[in-house]
């Protein structure tokens, strides 16, 4: 791109993959937009400049964290590992979460600034993380929101650990908090053990544009927390919006992130004007994400060409300044009577259509399995096995193989396993949205 970026913001490049050729009367335009941010440097590499970031770690301290007792100790150790991973200059706080939220460090509604002293103080304070009480995740997030709002940092992030169901507030209460917090900060969520609800945790991560995962063995928490914090320290720019312009008389069928995981953004549009809307993408470090845009346009005649969508990454500016455009790609439509051209399917579009179907098949299959609908569960999970194999999604294939016995991978013939471990089922459900990128052609 031309040089209009500030030095600390990564350079964004966009690439559009599509078959722009439509048959006569064709209306649906699909494209995969790959957005790659580079040049910001990751946390491991960066030194020097004070970090413009703030992180709040929320640790579940409900009574169940004492069963087994090692769980609470592992959570303390994991939080200590995360604190050790903080870059100097990053603002941070630790919150204990029960049916209410309590500041563990530094307290007083403030954040501490990371250095050798504050890190030691914080780790010492972790002894106050003790298990007793209930679970109201919304109250933890509300406190984190208030703490982060006072920090004035441009990158605001949360790390949330829970081991149980959100029993001490209603789903509506949690939803309301998520709606209030969305766009204020991003949040990665982890469920430890197997007594938590996958949908609750993924709901929080999705609303707050973070990752969700399971840490079935509390002994693995420390390594997981260190990685999460490293990733957070690598973020260079926050509040990036995917801006979509579409022509008059067109309809946006969907806008999805499809790599590294599937996340439907369609309903999260904020209108900019009649033909332009913004979709939140959260914060970015050096990373690459793929988006699938599907637009229905008014068909034009053979030989006509139109712009079906203009996809840009924009960064809102303070005050009256126009937002900065970080990158842009054009999605086109060209009507042709060349059947060879119009019947071609973009490999990228086909691949991610399959990955999205894979995620859906797993979720529907597990739901059917829980509901005792064996036929539907077998069909859906069989289809998932087939899709995972076709697309080379080996991680997902391995997780599926712990829930079903694979008879014929290519045909998607499976039998449901008996006595599946809760951890295996929850891992599959939590990670169902993870995708792989298009295999390089030989």
């Amino acid at each position: 791109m031309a040089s209009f970026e500030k030095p600390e913001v990564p350079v964004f490049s966009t690439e559009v993959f599509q078959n722009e050729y439509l048959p006569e009367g064709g209306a649906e335009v699909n494209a995969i937009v790959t957005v790659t941010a580079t040049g910001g440097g990751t946390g491991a590499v960066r030194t020097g400049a004070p970090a413009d970031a703030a992180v709040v770690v929320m640790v579940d301290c409900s009574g169940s964290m004492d069963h087994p007792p090692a769980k609470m100790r592992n959570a303390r150790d994991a939080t200590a590992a995360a604190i050790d991973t903080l870059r100097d200059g990053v603002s941070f706080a630790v919150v204990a979460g029960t049916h209410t939220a309590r500041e563990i460090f530094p307290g007083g509604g403030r954040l501490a600034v990371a250095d050798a002293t504050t890190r030691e103080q914080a780790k010492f304070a972790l002894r106050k993380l003790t298990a007793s009480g209930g679970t109201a995740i919304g109250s933890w997030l509300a406190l984190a929101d208030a703490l982060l709002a006072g920090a004035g940092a441009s990158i605001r992030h949360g790390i949330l650990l829970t081991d149980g169901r959100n029993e001490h507030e209603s789903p509506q209460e949690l939803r309301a908090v998520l709606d209030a917090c969305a766009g204020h900060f991003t949040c990665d969520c982890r469920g430890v053990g197997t007594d938590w609800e996958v949908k609750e945790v993924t709901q929080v991560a999705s609303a707050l544009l973070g990752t969700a995962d399971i840490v079935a063995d509390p002994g693995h928490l420390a390594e997981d927390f260190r990685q999460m914090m490293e990733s957070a320290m690598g973020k260079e720019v926050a509040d990036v919006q995917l801006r979509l312009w579409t022509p008059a008389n067109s309809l946006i069928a969907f806008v999805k992130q499809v790599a590294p995981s599937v996340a439907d953004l369609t309903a999260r549009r904020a209108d900019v004007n009649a033909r332009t809307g913004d979709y939140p993408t959260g914060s970015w470090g050096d990373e690459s994400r793929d988006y699938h845009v599907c637009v229905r346009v008014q068909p034009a005649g053979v030989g006509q060409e139109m712009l079906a969508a203009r996809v840009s990454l924009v960064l809102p500016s303070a005050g009256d300044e126009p937002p900065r455009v970080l990158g842009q790609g054009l999605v086109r439509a060209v009507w042709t009577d060349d059947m060879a051209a119009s019947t071609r399917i973009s490999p990228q579009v086909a691949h991610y259509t399959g990955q999205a179907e894979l995620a859906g098949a797993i979720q529907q299959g597990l739901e059917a399995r829980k509901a005792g609908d064996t036929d539907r569960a077998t069909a859906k999970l069989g289809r998932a096995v087939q899709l995972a194999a076709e697309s080379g999604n080996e991680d997902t294939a391995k997780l599926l193989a712990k829930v079903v016995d694979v008879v014929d991978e290519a045909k998607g013939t499976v039998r449901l396993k008996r006595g599946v471990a809760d951890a295996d089922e929850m891992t599959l459900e939590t990670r169902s949205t993870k995708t792989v990128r298009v295999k390089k052609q030989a």
Partner: protein
Amino acid sequence: MPQLTVCPSCAEHLEPEDKFCGNCGAPLADADPPLLGAEHLTGADADAEHLTGADADAGHLTGADADAEHLTGADADAGHLTGADADAEHLTGADPDAGHLTGADADAGHLAGADAAGAGRDGESAFGVIGDAPTGSYSLAPPAPGHPPQAAPAPQAAPIPVTVPVSSSTAERSVVPPAPPRAGAVDPRQGMLAQPEPEPAGDCVSCEAGTVGDDGFCTRCGHRAPRERDHVERQLPTVAAVSDKGLRHHRNEDAFALAEAERPDGGRAIIAVVCDGVSSATRPDEASAAASQAGGAQLANDLADGAEPRQAMHEALLTAAAAVSALAPPEAAGDPHFNAPACTCVSAVLIGDLLTVGWIGDSRAYWIPAGGTQEPARLTEDDSWAARMVEAGLMSEADAYADPRAHAITGWLGADAEELDPHTASFHLDTPGVVLVCTDGLWNYAESAAELAAVLPSGARTDPLGCARSLVQVALDGGGHDNVTVAVLPFPAVDGGAEGAGERRA
């Protein structure tokens, strides 16, 4: 992604992803590359220009651009490809004793007498043929065993985010009005960020309500605004050409260049170069633009320096091919999945009564004599699968042209061309007529020379531009499935230039 390497506004070096210049903010989507010789085209007095030595180098080189889809065979009109009359136009280079041979060309061939239906009798032939080296230029090697003739390259999956049309500058005699000047260094991104979208009565020809943005799309309905290259007309005193997008393609991938050059002896060389981008290749529009401009410039330069016309023609085809090859990114070399930019090329040079043609691919040149005194003739032999099969004696003409592979070209300009085999031939003209140089977008609708002669408007010799327009209309009336381009060179040259150097020296 198609790319310019420097900003056309401020010459700032550009990165491959740039859509706007990082220095001045100029949009790069519609940038016009400088046209060779354009500075010679601004004077008011055309005659003075092309007669002065200093200007002869670049001559009146104009370039034009235009789209092509001639490789699938599916869009070719098979009906007229099987006619027996095709024989009459086919030239062979076998017979060495042609009418107007000159010393150096003594090994040349001429019109195949028996087939030519009166046009090719020795000593009174319409024109002699000065063919290629002993075997003539029309023998095509049979396909190598195990290597079937290369069909049209497979359609490319489509990571083509942006199309950057490469359009030539407007020449002095351009009939197309120059594009309105663009706003200067205003960052075009701001346009889309404006909060209330302004909707004045727009300049969009599709919805008439939206305005066309800097990327060439209507900011309201998204339709691509017509591009300069969609329809291009040019004329010089002695030659004219028209190129049109046609009715079924979204882009014009044909291109042409016209030029006049003064020979050292004061004679005039009239030059027309026509190229047809290979649609299934990457950036075919850029390929044809590059080839026509490079080929035209090379011919103008060499002929002004006194080069022998067929040698100049050969060199010009190599130069044009190199220009197309240069469009392929070096990192794609050896990548079998990369479809390098490619095009055909056909050129005609008229110096006095000596006509020289050169070609690679299936774009063609025809001679259409006036007044029915001679038979019209096709002067080129396609580098196509069907032509090869017939030439090699492997199939009958009817069978070959009925085959789906018939129109797959076997020769083209581009980095992935297996071998470059420029064909050249020269002819002495001895009766008034016109030379047509065209892409398959025209000859698909009038394949034989006789069919073309039948649709040639009267007055073609005195109004070459009108003639070119009229021929383009024939293709459009026939369906306009492909891009269509035709250049018309009247003989004798319309302003009397062909009558000779002596007059001008006097």
